[in-house]
C-alpha cells in the first residue's frame, strides 16, 4: 500500500536522533492503574472509552446473535416470546446508549478534537474524566438489568406499556439511561467550549477540519436534546413508582405526549449517531484522494443544518399514532428537507473522489462502503418520511433494515474507518493492511447479506419485534441470519489484528498516510501535551496538491510543519 510504504521516507524527514531512543509519549507517561483511572489526558480517556464501548458493542452483539439465531427458522426454537422481547430491547438499549452515541465522539472525538485544533487538552479535562465514570456507572446499571431479567419495552420505552404494564426492569434501565445521558451532556458541553475557545491562533472556523464541524454539530444536539430525554425517562420512572398519571390514559394522560418528548431527543440522537461518522468520512475521503474536500463550506454548514433541522422532524416516528394529520404533514415535509444536507455531503464526497489519486486502503474501503450504504439508508428514510408509505411500512422489517443501514452500515463502518485511519496515530504502530482490507470486505458483504433481505420481507409486511413468522419469510430470514454470522466474523477479526498490532505492528512515523491536518504533524503516538510548542495555523484544511508557498517552518524537533511556530 502506498500509504504504508511511504511512511519510511516520512520517518526519515523527521530526522531527529531521538527517533530510535524510547520517547516519552502519552502512553508511556505513567503505567500504574492510577495513571489510567485518574488521568485527565484526553487521549488516555479516549482509550478508556475505546475499551468500554468495544465491551458494550460485544454485549449488544451477543443479543443480536441470539436474535438472529432465533429468527433463522420461522418457529420458536431458541427462545420464547418473553425472552425475545428482552433480547431486542437490550440489544437496542446497549447498542444505542452505550455504543453508538459515545462511539465516535467519545473515542475519536476525545482523542482528536484537541489535537486537530492545536490545543493541549479539552477545556475541562476533569469533567471529561467524570463523563467516562458516569458512562461506566450507567453501564453497570444496564448490566445489572441484563443479569436480573432484562427489560422488554423496546429501547423506546413507549408508554403506557413501560409505565404501567411491563413487569420487567424498566425503572432500573431508566436509571441507567438517565445516568449515561449525563455523560453525553458533559462530553458535548466540553466539545462546544473547546471548539469555541481553544483553537490555535490562525485556526479560523473555516480552516477547521470537517471532523471538527461534525463534532461541534453533534455536541450541540447532545447539549440541547439529552436533557429532554433525561426528564422524559425520569417521568416514566415517576409514573411507575408513584403513579403520577402523566402518561396514563385512564386518567386523561396522553401516551403520545411521551412519544413527543422521547423523539424530541431520540430523533436528533439519530444524528448524534451519524454526524460524527460523516466527519470521519470527510477526513478519510480527502486523505486518500489527496484532494481538498469539494465544497468545504457546504459540507461544514450541512452539519449544522442537520443538527438544527433534525430537531424539527421527530413527528415522522408518530404517523401511525394519534398524532394530528396536519402536524404529520408538517413533519413529513421537514423530513424531506433534512435529507437535503445529507445529500449535499454525499454529493460532495463523490465530487472529491473525482480525479483524485485514490488509494484503496482499509479506511478508504470503509469510507466508500459508508457512502453507498448511507445513500441506501438515507433514501429509504425518505420513503418512511412520506406519510402514505409509512402507513404500510411502519413497524415492519423495512424500518429495521433502514435504520441498520444508517446505524450499522454507516456509523459502525465510519467508526471502524476512523479507528483504522487514526490507529497508527493513537499507538504508533500500523495494523496489518491485508487483513484490514480483508475484514472490510467481509464486513461489507456480511452487512448487506444481513440487512438487504430485511428490506424485502419488510416490504412484504413482516412486522418487527416478533420471534416467529410465517413460513413464506423463511428464506429471506435464513439469508439474513447467515449474513449476520459473516458480519460477526468481520467484526471479530479487527479486534484480533488491532490488538496484535499493538505489540507487533510495524512502527510508523508521524504521517503514515501523508495526510494533511495538525494531528499528522505531531509524533505517533503523541506526547502528553500533544505539541512541543505553541501552534500557529497558516493554511486551510486539506491543502493537498501543490506545495503550499507559505507557512512552512521547522519546529523544535525538526518535523516538517505546515504550521509555523511563534
Amino acid at each position: 500500500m502506498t500509504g504504508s510504504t511511504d511512511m519510511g521516507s516520512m520517518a526519515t524527514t523527521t530526522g531527529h536522533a531521538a527517533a530510535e531512543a524510547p520517547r516519552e509519549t502519552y502512553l508511556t507517561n505513567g503505567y500504574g492503574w492510577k495513571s489510567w483511572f485518574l488521568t485527565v489526558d484526553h487521549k488516555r480517556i479516549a482509550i478508556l472509552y475505546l475499551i468500554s464501548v468495544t465491551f458494550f458493542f460485544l454485549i449488544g452483539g451477543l443479543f443480536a446473535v441470539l436474535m438472529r439465531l432465533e429468527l433463522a427458522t420461522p418457529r420458536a426454537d431458541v427462545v420464547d416470546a418473553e425472552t425475545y422481547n428482552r433480547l431486542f430491547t437490550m440489544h437496542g438499549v446497549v447498542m444505542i446508549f452505550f455504543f453508538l452515541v459515545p462511539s465516535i465522539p467519545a473515542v475519536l472525538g476525545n482523542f482528536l478534537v484537541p489535537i486537530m485544533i492545536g490545543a493541549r487538552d479539552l477545556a475541562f479535562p476533569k469533567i471529561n474524566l467524570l463523563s467516562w465514570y458516569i458512562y461506566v456507572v450507567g453501564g453497570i446499571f444496564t448490566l445489572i438489568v441484563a443479569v436480573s431479567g432484562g427489560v422488554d419495552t423496546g429501547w423506546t420505552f413507549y408508554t403506557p406499556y413501560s409505565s404501567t404494564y411491563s413487569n420487567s426492569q424498566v425503572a432500573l434501565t431508566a436509571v441507567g439511561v438517565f445516568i449515561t445521558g449525563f455523560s453525553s451532556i458533559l462530553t458535548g458541553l466540553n466539545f462546544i467550549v473547546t471548539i469555541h475557545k481553544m483553537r490555535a491562533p490562525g485556526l479560523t472556523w473555516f480552516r477547521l477540519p470537517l471532523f471538527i464541524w461534525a463534532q461541534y454539530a453533534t455536541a450541540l444536539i447532545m447539549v440541547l436534546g439529552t436533557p429532554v430525554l433525561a426528564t422524559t425517562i425520569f417521568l416514566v420512572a415517576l409514573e411507575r413508582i408513584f403513579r403520577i398519571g402523566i402518561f396514563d390514559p385512564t386518567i386523561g394522560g396522553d401516551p403520545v405526549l411521551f412519544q413527543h418528548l422521547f423523539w424530541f431527543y431520540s430523533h436528533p440522537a439519530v444524528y448524534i449517531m451519524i454526524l460524527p461518522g460523516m466527519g470521519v468520512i470527510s477526513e478519510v475521503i480527502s486523505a486518500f484522494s489527496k484532494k481538498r474536500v469539494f465544497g468545504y463550506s457546504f459540507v461544514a454548514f450541512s452539519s449544522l443544518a442537520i443538527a438544527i433541522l433534525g430537531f424539527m422532524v421527530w413527528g415522522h416516528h408518530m404517523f401511525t399514532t394519534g398524532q394530528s394529520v396536519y402536524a404529520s404533514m408538517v413533519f413529513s415535509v421537514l423530513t424531506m428537507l433534512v435529507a437535503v444536507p445529507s445529500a449535499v455531503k454525499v454529493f460532495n464526497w463523490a465530487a472529491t473522489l473525482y480525479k483524485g489519486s485514490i488509494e484503496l486502503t482499509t479506511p478508504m474501503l470503509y469510507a466508500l462502503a459508508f457512502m453507498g450504504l448511507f445513500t441506501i439508508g438515507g433514501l429509504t428514510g425518505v420513503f418512511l418520511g412520506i406519510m402514505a408509505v409509512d402507513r404500510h411500512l411502519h413497524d415492519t422489517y423495512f424500518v429495521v433494515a433502514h435504520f441498520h443501514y444508517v446505524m450499522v452500515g454507516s456509523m459502525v463502518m465510519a467508526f471502524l474507518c476512523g479507528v483504522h485511519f487514526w490507529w497508527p496515530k493513537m499507538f504508533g504502530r500500523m495494523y496489518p493492511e491485508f487483513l484490514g482490507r480483508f475484514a472490510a470486505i467481509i464486513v461489507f458483504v456480511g452487512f448487506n447479506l444481513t440487512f438487504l433481505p430485511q428490506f424485502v420481507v419488510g416490504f412484504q409486511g413482516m412486522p418487527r419485534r416478533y420471534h416467529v413468522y410465517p413460513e413464506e419469510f423463511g428464506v429471506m430470514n435464513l439469508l439474513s441470519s447467515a449474513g449476520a454470522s459473516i458480519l460477526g466474523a468481520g467484526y471479530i477479526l479487527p479486534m484480533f489484528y488491532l490488538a496484535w498490532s499493538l505489540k507487533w505492528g510495524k512502527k510508523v512515523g508521524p504521517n503514515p498516510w501523508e495526510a494533511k491536518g495538525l494531528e499528522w504533524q505531531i509524533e505517533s503516538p503523541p506526547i502528553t501535551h500533544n505539541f512541543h510548542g505553541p501552534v500557529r495555523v497558516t493554511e486551510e484544511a486539506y491543502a493537498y496538491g501543490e506545495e503550499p508557498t507559505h507557512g512552512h517552518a521547522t519546529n523544535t524537533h525538526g518535523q516538517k510543519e505546515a504550521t509555523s511556530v511563534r
Partner: protein
Amino acid sequence: MSADHAHALPAGVRPPTYHHFEDLAQQEESEKLGMWAFLITEVMFFGALFTAYTVYRNLYPEAFMDASSKLNWKLGAVNTLVLIVSSLTMALAIRAAQTGKYSQVIWQTVATMIFGATFLVVKYFEYMHKYHDGLMPGPTLFFTDVFGEHTPQARIFFSIYFAMTGLHAFHMVVGLGILTWVLIKARKRYFTPDRYLALENVGLYWHFVDLVWIFLFPMLYLLGAHYGLGH
C-alpha cells in the same frame, strides 16, 4: 504550572490556573461559556416539563383552574419575593467581590443562603399541607376527589406541580450546597477583584433557579385566582 508551559506570556497577560490554557483570559472565557452551555441543558431539563404542562393545561383548562385554586397563592407569592431578594443579594455578593469588599462578600452570601433556606422551609410546609389534604399523587397515597368530575385531570395537575416544584427545590438544595462552598472560600478571601469568575458562575446558576420560579409561580399558583382567591 507546568514545565511545558515555559514559553513566555506577553507582558500583562496573567498565567492560567490550568496548564492546558494559554492564559487566564482563555481559561475564564472557557469557564464562563461552559457555564452558559450548562444552563442551556438546565433550560432543556425544565423545558420538557413546561411542554407537558402546556399540553395538559390546554387539554384540561377547567381542571387546572380548579386544582390551582387549591394551592396557597399567598405562600407562592411570598416565596417569589424571597427568591427575588436572594437573587439581589447574590448579585450584590458578586459586586462586592468585584470591588474587593471581602466582608460584604461573606454576609451577602450568608443572606442569599438564608433566603434560599427560607424558600425551602415555606415549600416544605406547602408540601406537608398538600400531603395532609390528600393532594399528593402516589401509589399508597390517597388522592382526594374534591374536584368532582375533574378529579383525574386534577391529579395530573398535581403530578406536574410536584414534578416541577420538586425539580426546582432540588436545584435550590444543590444551590445551597454550592453556596456553602462559596462561604468557605469567601472567608479565605478567595474571591478578589481579578478572580471572581467562580462566584459569578455560581451566581448564574442561582439566578437561573430564580428564573424558573418566576415562570412557575403564575403558571401553577394563579390559574384559578380570579375565582378561587383567598381559599
